[in-house]
């Protein structure tokens, strides 16, 4: 069974069209609502504000009126690194974060994590968040919490899970119906579903039948900090060269998209 399963290994990932992303923030809200993300009275210090999905603002640095901005939604990139050794997975001392070869998802187990924050130091995308505070919901509002996702306690690290609970739920249904495989639309992340501009596409990057498979092959597709060898599963697409260039560190003479870590 396991050898067969291995063959069908999935690599769930995203392709985000940055030319479509409007920076409206719907993905962030959908993510927060889906994943019981806590909120504080003041969230304007973005350095301690938990947003699994964060929309970064990129600017081209040019003078008015040649200035341009672009928004870049950044979920956890679910790095594969080299054979699943993503920057964060290999450093966690207590095996609280793991890479699944079955789905390609980097998990974070809140009850295992003891809050050393080494994974945060390791993640160049700042996709990991520490619960500096106890999560507190205003009286009565804890009613909105979803039982599908554990509420995190103070003192541990959390991050985007690609809405893995949706996969679990969908698999539940599949098991009941005697299936082991999910259709593309059966497992979609909350942000993908919520994006009104349709900028996010989610699916199995290994499956030629899924939309992401084709989209990631666009000549305008790139990944964040690709040359670090993080081997991420979130692809971005933009027709604008300055945006593609902003996705990685380039030396002045290097051409956009010409440098990437070998795998």
């Amino acid at each position, binding site marked *: 069974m396991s050898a067969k399963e291995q063959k069908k290994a999935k690599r769930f990932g995203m392709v985000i069209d940055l030319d479509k992303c409007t920076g409206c923030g719907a993905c962030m809200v959908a993510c927060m609502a889906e994943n019981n993300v806590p909120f504080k009275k003041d969230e304007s210090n973005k350095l301690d504000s938990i947003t699994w999905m964060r929309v970064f603002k990129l600017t081209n640095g040019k003078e008015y009126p040649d200035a341009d901005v672009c928004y870049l939604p950044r979920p956890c990139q679910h790095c594969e690194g080299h054979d699943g050794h993503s920057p964060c997975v290999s450093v966690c001392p207590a*095996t609280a974060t793991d890479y699944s*070869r079955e789905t390609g998802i980097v*998990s974070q187990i809140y009850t295992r994590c003891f809050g050393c924050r080494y994974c945060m130091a390791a993640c160049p995308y700042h996709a990991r968040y520490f619960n500096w505070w106890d999560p507190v919901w205003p009286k009565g509002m804890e009613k909105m919490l979803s039982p599908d996702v554990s509420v995190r306690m103070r003192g541990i690290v959390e991050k985007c899970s690609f809405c893995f609970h949706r996969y679990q739920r969908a698999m539940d249904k599949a*098991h009941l*119906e005697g299936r082991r495989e999910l259709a593309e639309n059966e497992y979609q992340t909350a942000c993908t579903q919520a994006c009104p501009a349709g900028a996010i596409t989610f699916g199995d990057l290994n499956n030629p039948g899924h939309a992401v498979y084709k989209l990631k092959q666009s000549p305008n597709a790139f990944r964040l900090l690709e040359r670090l060898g993080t081997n991420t599963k979130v692809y971005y697409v933009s027709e604008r060269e300055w945006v593609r260039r902003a996705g990685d560190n380039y030396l002045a003479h290097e051409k956009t998209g010409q440098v990437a870590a070998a795998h």
Partner: protein
Amino acid sequence: MSALEEKAKESSDNNGGFAILFFIIGLAASLIFGWVVFPKLLYSQKKQPFDFSHALHNGLVDNGCQSCHFFREDGSYAGVPKLAQCVDCHEDVQGETEDEAVFVNEYVKPGREVPWLVYSRQPDCVFFSHAAHVKSGGMDCKTCHGPIGESESLKPYEENRITGYSRDIWGKNIAGFKSHTWDRMKMDDCSECHVKNGVRQNSVQTEKGACFVCHK
């Protein structure tokens, strides 16, 4: 520790043996405390709202456990029955037991859900798919839940005062030993079976099942 013990030993010829005696007294007392008294202190005993005979009901239904503990259409598992499932038969007191009367008068009539204490409730961090185990894995209920379907009354619910979890998760045995598959429901017990059956050994970290199989 043994430095002191040795020190006590060498202290003097006339009370050296006495020191050993005290050592033994201390040892015995704390062993008794740790093995016998401590578990009693650690767990609080709670009574179920009223008693329930699985055996009796099991005899009345056609479909075994799934008659009441069923799957919902979305694949999720309904678990402990809701009031609505019981009222069909229990609209009025029909049997002779006091417990049924309690059920009908205190819960059915005011339309209040029974606050059952669930022995097998896993911690919130656990995702358990009954569908995967029962439907795809072909497991029976007994493997994890034991012969509860044959029980005639409900045992007291023991709750760990510190963690708030049911004792059945850690197991009755305070040392954590088990003699049946259903004696404990800790992660090790899940992984034992998963490893044995080779269920998707996909974790990069452990070469066993990945964390997100059972966690949420």
